[in-house]
């Protein structure tokens, strides 16, 4: 996770929804300062982190799927190759 960014209470009030979006979608954390001292923290919840991780995985699956379609057709299925490698000496 990225290091927490410090914002003043006024900045937090004026940009509250933007900070929430950055927290949810970019995983950013914020420390809200008042009179030069840390007062509150804003950070993504576990749900938001899980959703981000999940979205990243789904993107990876699509990338693999698209790439796999560029590969030549195999003369053996994955099951057949595995079977051959697993049972080679049987």
């Amino acid at each position, binding site marked *: 996770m990225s290091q927490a960014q410090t914002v003043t209470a006024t900045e937090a009030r004026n940009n509250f929804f933007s900070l929430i979006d950055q927290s949810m979608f970019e995983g950013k954390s914020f420390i809200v300062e008042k009179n030069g001292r840390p007062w509150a923290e804003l950070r993504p919840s576990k749900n938001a982190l899980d959703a981000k991780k999940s979205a990243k995985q789904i993107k990876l*699956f699509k990338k693999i799927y698209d790439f*796999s379609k560029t590969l*030549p057709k195999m003369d053996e299925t*994955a*099951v057949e*190759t595995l079977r051959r490698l*697993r*049972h080679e000496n*049987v």
Partner: protein
Amino acid sequence: MKMFNSLCIDASVFLAFFLGEPNSKKILSFFTAIHKSSISIIEPSYLDVEIMSTLRNKVFCEKISHLEYTRLLNDYLAFDINIFQVSRELLKLANIHSVKSDQPVIYDCIYSALAEDQKAIFVTADDKFLKKIKKVYKHSYSVSEAFELIKGY
């Protein structure tokens, strides 16, 4: 209906997906459904060996290039999987699965044994093995069956 927290997926499913077999679209939907649910993927550490070895064999047999192999391998390593070390206890259970299912080797049974040990669903693309292992571990499914099962989670 019994709810499961995790799935153990045989190497055959990953490899069919990586190599773009006709069922790869179904596997894509399956993987996507897993990540939209609260189910996690658990795998024996042996999966790494099988994936690397099989893809390496495809390079050796000149079916894919070394560059394609490297790319697939890097993508595989980015999969969010909980890896379990293959212990002797797990191998003992795999051996029992192997004897009961009349498998000549125990490789496939390492996955079904981990599934049983962790009270997970076992998924394989190998229909022949599935038919045998269902009699030993009843929570064994094909990709299509497992997909239907987890859609409701």
